[in-house]
């Protein structure tokens, strides 16, 4: 029985990782209506920057904060410089630009920091009040951080005027312009926030999976699945989606189908769920007028 709970809890931890990445994807989607395939690699690159700052001797939370700022600025810069020229282009053109960014970030990470795995420290204590053999200090801490980020995003998008403006700009850019919203800058801010959220995800994940240029490649797909399962426009959904994906995969691997097919079966189940609920579990149904 203990093993079962261990599997569930390890699934919850993994799910937290997927949820964090999924959150960044949702963030980008809510502000730009695009799914950013480069999200994982951007997060990895941001984590490398944090690692470099730590190597220089900065204390953890200072490096953490600095990385968030750098990531935000970087995200804004990418939108302004690289994505603006294709803002009006078809969706798939944007997708290809994202793929271009993906390979660029991956290659630059490898070139600057080489491919040997690096240890990324965890800021959370190894022993502590709630730490048991079911949770490690880091897993608990990372979960709290993910929840905190989620709450911030939710509050920001829902309750602040800028958040409202961002959502309007993404939903209906033309009308938004008519009411005076600077749509282009809303997109840029959206990218900045998404990059920052990605950086948080990266820094929370790296202590578990070790830092190397391909750290996020496997996780991105699961983040994608988490975000879509929960509904691409719903931040809470991505957290639930992430937890479901993480736990499902673990339980399938341990008890149902064995590890050799668990990825396949997990994906089949996700597709099946989506077929029943095509907008995700908590997504809004988009109605188009004919």
């Amino acid at each position, binding site marked *: 029985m203990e*093993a079962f709970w*261990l599997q569930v809890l390890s699934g919850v931890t993994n799910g937290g990782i997927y949820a964090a990445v999924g959150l960044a994807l949702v963030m980008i989607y809510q502000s730009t209506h695009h799914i950013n395939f480069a999200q994982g690699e951007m997060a990895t690159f941001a984590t490398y920057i944090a690692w470099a700052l730590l190597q220089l001797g900065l204390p953890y939370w200072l490096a953490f904060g600095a990385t968030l700022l750098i990531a935000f600025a970087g995200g804004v810069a990418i939108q302004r410089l690289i994505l603006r020229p294709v803002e009006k282009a078809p969706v798939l053109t944007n997708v290809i630009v994202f793929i271009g960014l993906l390979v660029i970030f991956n290659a630059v990470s490898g070139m600057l920091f080489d491919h040997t*795995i690096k240890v990324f420290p965890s800021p959370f204590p190894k022993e502590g009040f709630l730490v048991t053999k079911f949770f490690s200090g880091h897993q608990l801490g990372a979960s709290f951080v993910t929840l905190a980020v989620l709450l911030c995003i939710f509050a920001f998008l829902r309750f602040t005027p800028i958040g409202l403006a961002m959502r309007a700009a993404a939903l209906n850019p033309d009308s938004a312009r008519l009411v005076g919203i600077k749509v282009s800058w809303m997109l840029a801010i959206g990218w900045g926030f998404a990059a920052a959220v990605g950086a948080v995800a990266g820094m929370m994940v790296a202590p578990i999976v070790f830092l190397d240029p391909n750290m996020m490649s496997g996780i991105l797909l699961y983040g994608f699945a988490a975000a879509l399962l929960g509904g691409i426009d719903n931040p809470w959904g991505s957290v639930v989606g992430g937890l479901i994906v993480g736990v499902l995969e673990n339980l399938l691997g341990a008890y149902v189908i064995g590890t050799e097919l668990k990825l396949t079966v997990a994906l089949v189940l996700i597709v099946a769920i989506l077929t029943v609920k095509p907008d995700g579990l908590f997504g809004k149904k988009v109605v188009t007028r004919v």
Partner: protein
Amino acid sequence: MTMNSKRRDITQAIAAVAIGVGMAGASPAALAQKQYGPGATDQEIKIGNIMPYSGPASAYGAIGKAAAGYYQMINDQGGVNGRKINFVSLDDGYSPPKTLEQARKLVEQDNVLALVTTLGTPTNSAIHKYMNQRKVPHLFIATGATKWGDPKGYPWTMGFQPSYQPEAKIYVQHILETKPNAKIGILYQNDDYGKDYLKGFEDGLGDKAKSMIVAKVSYEVTDPTIDSQIVQLKASGADTFFNITTPKFAAMAIKKAAETGWKPTHYLNSVSNSAGAVMNPAGAENGIGIITGLYWKELDDPEFAADKAMTDYLAFMKKYLPQADTKDVNYLYGYSNAMAVAEVLKRCGDNLTRENVMKQAASLKDFNIPTLLPGINLTTGADDFFPIERMQPARWDGKRWVRFGKVLGR
């Protein structure tokens, strides 16, 4: 090309006269004319290499970088028999079709003398037949899959490191001797490398495999973590663990096992026993008691602190790869593999044909690479295409690998 054939004609004529005049005591080597295969000239020897510099296996690109640095060093010291080594290394992203394309480019367009140190099992499988059909030396492949030592079937392909199945059998031997009632759990990467080790292990156990192996769990390279697998293995009640994982996942496994409080007798495969790439990132105390098979000298081993081979290696790294993490054993591997290649080329002398390269590679007798542990050498023969076959068992003590027992293997 015409220049060389002209020179060859003249040299042949001179050689014919010389043979006729001084047949009695002249040694054959002195009379041998220069023979050049593709890629070899008076000035240079061109050899090719294919590495995954990008993609999921990019960590192994370090091997190619170290090898390139070594050849650079050799060239700076004058080259091999006065010829510079031109090392052409291409990226295949660990994708077999790309490996084939790059191999064809190197052989048919760049006209290299040989392909050396190519990495990966599926990638080398894709070019296995091609290299042998084209009769191009496919030397010192950077993988331990057992199928590379097949001189009858594939006379142009030769492995390098101890192969996986014999290594697994060494661990089996140790288990049967020290813990005959062990309950064994295995974690393996779901690919050629993982399954090769697994086969060797199960074959080594024979009939006992069914009763002794209580859990066999796999993972994919694309999996983010293997926590679930470790939990599964612990839950199976295994008290012995055979860990067939590549470095990143090995570090994760060691860490997670410690975190869940699972303390089996842990056998770690030699691909992932690097102090720098695995044991330290995993938490050095977490790995205490892990057993592995070593064949390289360890940087942290006090016995080799002043060893010339290691100080040479460190000096080499400082000069040619200053940014690299010297504790990542991939660099040591590439450096040493290049040493073997350079030796083979040196032994070819002026007969730099593909046939002779293969011949020299297949006649190594106790050739010592100084970075190998004492008692372990390269030996090849007409029916032995496994250059390194011996390993030294060692145990991690929290700081470094401590050797114990005798060197095992053929």
